[in-house]
């Protein structure tokens, strides 16, 4: 126990602000995300992630959002296991034939108003996995999409900025 506490104490706070890293004004964007979440989502934005056919590369970076460096919770964002609690769906693709129905059902199970963000080159229809017998392709071919985040996979910073864009 002592060891555990010591490690926590020694590590301290490692969170970085990466919002708008490539933009001019980091501070403004950072507070903007928190502000919008406070106003539009009463301080808490709940996300359900759906892998609709990904290679799992995109998921690695979505996981990283939760680590203490990016610490997405600092903005009031948290991930849920149930679409019924979700405000936003973060969907990776390409949508496979075998996931099409599950994706539609998950979308329907999410209460309106809801936002959908397509993640990764595949989810945006520009990845290596274009359409074939097994894949339908971009997320917006199956459900309506509000914002797109490109990259293979997109970095955690790109993901954060993309989510901001979607809720703005």
């Amino acid at each position, binding site marked *: 126990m002592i*060891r*555990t506490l010591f*490690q*926590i104490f020694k*590590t301290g706070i*490692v969170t970085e602000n990466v919002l708008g890293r490539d933009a001019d004004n980091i501070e403004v964007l950072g507070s903007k995300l928190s502000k919008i979440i406070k106003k539009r989502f009463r301080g808490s934005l709940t996300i359900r*992630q*759906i*892998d*609709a*056919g*990904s*290679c*799992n*590369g*995109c*998921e*690695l*970076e*979505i*996981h*990283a959002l*939760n*680590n*203490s*460096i990016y610490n997405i919770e600092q903005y009031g964002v948290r*991930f849920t*296991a149930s*679409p019924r609690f979700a405000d936003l769906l973060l969907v990776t693709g*390409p949508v*496979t*034939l*075998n*996931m099409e129905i*599950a994706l539609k059902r*998950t979308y329907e199970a999410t209460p309106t108003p809801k936002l959908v963000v397509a993640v990764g080159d595949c989810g945006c229809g520009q990845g*290596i*996995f274009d*359409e*074939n*017998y*097994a*894949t339908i392709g971009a997320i917006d071919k199956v459900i309506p999409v509000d914002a797109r985040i490109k990259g*293979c*996979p997109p*970095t955690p910073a790109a993901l954060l900025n993309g989510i901001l864009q979607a809720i703005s």
Partner: protein
Amino acid sequence: MSVNKVLTYTVPADKFAGTAFEQKKKGAFLAAEWSAESENYFEVYACYRLNGEYQIVRTEISKEKAEFDSISGYYLAASRFERQIYSLMGIKAIGNTDQRPWIKFEDWPVDAWPLRKNFKQNTVLRRSEGTYDWIQAEGEGVFEIPVGPVHAGIIEPGHFRFQAVGEAIINLEERLGYVHKGIEKRYESTPWLEGYKLAGRVSGDSTVAHSLAYCIALEAMTGCKVPARAAWLRAIFLERERIANHLGDIGAIGNDAAFSILLYQLMRLKEMLLRTNQLLWGHRYVMDKIVPGGIVADIDKNGIEQILTELKKIEKEFKLLVKIYDGNPSLEERVLTTGILSKAQALELGVVGFVARASGLDIDSRVQNPFSPYDQLEIKVPVFTAGDVNARVWVRIEEVRESIRLIRLLLNNLPSGAIKTDCPLPPPNKTGFAVVEGWRGEIIYWLQSDSKGAINRCMARDPSALNWKGLEYSVLDNIVPDFPLCNKSFNASYAGNDL
């Protein structure tokens, strides 16, 4: 430079199952079973591994009859391979007691065989009616829990069906194939020198290992000699991928056992590694940097220094975190004797990688089937016998330490010179084979050129194709709430399995 040794021989169709029996008697494992189509016939292949030596048994099947004798009576693992052969190529394994589709779903048209040459890649499949016969359990107090495909948290999709009595699991059946992207079909229209990109996206968390296996198989076909510096840097990428995934997964297992500090601490170390990758080679996961003939990302003196400093830091912190893992009674309670895969079961299923090593099997293709530079390294392979969640964690802890040692060794002796040479195109009607020990275990690629020299078939076998079955066995008699923990401790790939 040594390449993967493999012996291929052809037997008549009526001897195919008999050779499986002989291999089994010798103690060989079934590593893979797959099919291919050439102009006049189908081919079915079975690949066996005995003490690190691979033998491929091939047989020809007439296109009119399209069936062969199942080897699933000798090898349990053959069952899913053969279901997949039937689902995607339409060659039936006679005698396999399970004839349900695998990867292909019941709502596909029954006569859609995507891997057949007359099936166009972009065919639009119309859904049809169909049912899947789940395994049923009956009896008083037995109830069923279906989970997925969209299941807990940030995870790949799969369906799990539990039969339980009270909290105890009496049966688990997996249903996979949700992320099937037709990768093997895509290969048929992919140029040889581009194929590494597809391989690098078979399972994104193993991008280095898969693209490396593809490249080695192609280089074996063409006789391409990769410069020494490239081979060494490839190994460094591979070991870094092993460390990164092990760190993240050990943390995630801690988290599933309600001990989240491990997750946050280890993810911090993982992030360190990814950032160094980005800084040195322009990609956090070193994707697309291993290409046929070598690599396209080098390192300079500063870079070497940077890695050495980073490793020192990771090593020191990791040591402390392992102590925290080791000395925590509340964790012990969850991970000890949970999700046991016995040695006998591991042998029977032919599981590979850290899963096998946690159940007492001393296998690691970096040692038993080494390519350069592993043929010049002495690698310590950790083997544990308990077969539980804790043993799988410990194998990975030891492997993190060993990979750190290997990377240091490789960096300190890095050969100078070129990092890439031109890889020629393979001649017609040739095959190439490669085995790479990724962080999950043995990855196999088998390539075949057609009569014009283009890709006829690329068979990719992720460790998960064998290890998923191990999970089904390990959860028996465990309680349902321990399933996430067991699942995480195997961490099989959905994408790598579904292709």
